[in-house]
């Protein structure tokens, strides 16, 4: 049994190793972008059925951002929505035979968690300036500054490990069951894996929102 913690390299170009995760991610990217291009070709004021579905997706993302962050969703929509969409599609790509989800490997999750970490800083600084962003570490009082600093790192690791553990465990369990009994037995586990994948994508996006909202200056939070 292969270690679930390592991903085999597909190509080795000099020092650059390109793993299957990167290839899978490229494929997912291509699919997502192509789908978006196809779907948004004929946008009109009077929506078709496809457009209604698209607008429902966008509206739902906006509503979630509004509910969770208590902020206008315009600036965060692309980041949060893309995170959710990518993780969702990546998790469910385990349906395709022979494909290991990119999120089942530590590197992709680490990249996502790193992006959330950077986004928290980026949006925090954008909203309140560097001073305002740093001031959010002193909430509720100055004693909490070290804890807040440590938390901002640990919650990133928590994010990473949560997504990785869920997706990897799902894939791992399905693999183990598959090695024991090949036919029909893994199907409930695969269904559970799909549910876990969807919920984890949702939770990842929600947590990203919560972290970003936590980096907003308190004045912005009250709005």
């Amino acid at each position, binding site marked *: 049994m292969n270690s679930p*913690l*390592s*991903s085999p*390299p597909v190509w080795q170009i000099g*020092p*650059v*190793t*390109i*793993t299957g*995760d*990167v290839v899978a*991610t*490229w494929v*997912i*990217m291509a699919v*997502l*972008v192509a789908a*978006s*291009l196809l*779907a*948004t070709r004929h*946008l*009109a*004021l009077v*929506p078709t059925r496809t*457009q209604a579905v*698209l*607008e429902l*997706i*966008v*509206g739902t993302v*906006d509503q979630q951002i509004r509910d969770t962050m208590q902020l206008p969703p*315009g600036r965060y*929509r*692309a*980041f949060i*929505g*893309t*995170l959710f*969409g*990518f993780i969702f599609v990546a998790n469910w790509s385990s349906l395709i035979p022979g494909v290991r989800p*990119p999120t089942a*490997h*530590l*590197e*992709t999750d*680490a*990249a*996502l968690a*790193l*992006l959330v970490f950077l986004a928290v800083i980026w949006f925090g600084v954008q909203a309140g300036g560097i001073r305002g962003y740093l001031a959010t570490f002193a909430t509720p009082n100055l004693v909490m500054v070290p804890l807040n600093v440590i938390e901002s790192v640990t919650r990133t690791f928590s994010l990473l490990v949560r997504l990785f553990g869920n997706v990897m465990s799902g894939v791992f369990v399905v693999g183990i069951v598959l090695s024991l009994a090949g036919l029909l037995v893994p199907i409930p586990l695969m269904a559970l894996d799909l549910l876990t994948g969807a919920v984890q994508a949702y939770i990842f996006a929600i947590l990203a929102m919560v972290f970003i909202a936590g980096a907003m200056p308190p004045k912005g939070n009250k709005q």
Partner: protein
Amino acid sequence: MTLNWWTLGFQTVNVLVLIWLLQRFFWRPVSAMITQRQATIRKSVDDAHAIEAKAAAALATTVTTRAGFEAERQTILADAHKAAEAARASLLDTARTQALALQAAATAAIEAGRQAADAAWSGRAGQLAIGMAGRLATRLEGAAVQALFLDSLVQAIRALPEAVRAGLAVDGVTLDAVSDAPLDDAARAVAVTAIHGAIGAQPEIGFKVDASLIGGLELHAPHLTVANSWRADLARIHDQLPGESQPAPRPKASNAPLPLATVPTAA
């Protein structure tokens, strides 16, 4: 535990690029479309509100105009009422005035008619009375009456002015003694003698008969008539009667001396 840093970097860049691409091709167009539709809907709603407000304003204007119409109508009605009232009052006044005038005219007419009738009746009563008196007087025939008439004729001639009396006595003038009944010779001689004595001359005297005198003796000269008869008396009384509300002709039977009028006849 190994972490492939190249893969980490690749995935980070990949996700970033994906975020950018989806932002470019998915999130922004769709949300722009949503915003555009919302703006369109809001605009239509605003337009509808504006149209509604306009309609409400128009309605208010109409209501105001209608109220103005109503007030105007009330004013016109009130004016008409007033005019009608005034016309009615003036008509009533006119009618009353006319009625009063008519009444007055009618009263006057009635009064005039009554007076005319009174006058007519008075005239007729006078004539009747004179007629009756004349009829009565015809019965007074005889020598005594004749003598009385002769006396009064003589007195009347003597009462004439001297010049006139002299005019009677001019030669060639024939005087006519007119009586109601032919006189016999003795009466003629007495009368001639008396008249000659009164005049103071002896003009020729002819005798004529005129039954219409009723009774009496008159002397007719060419330029003068000495009226001395019932007829002349009655005519004089009759002339005095009209206009008097209570004519009271005296019965001639009393034969009160009446003023004798000498009426100059037209030559």
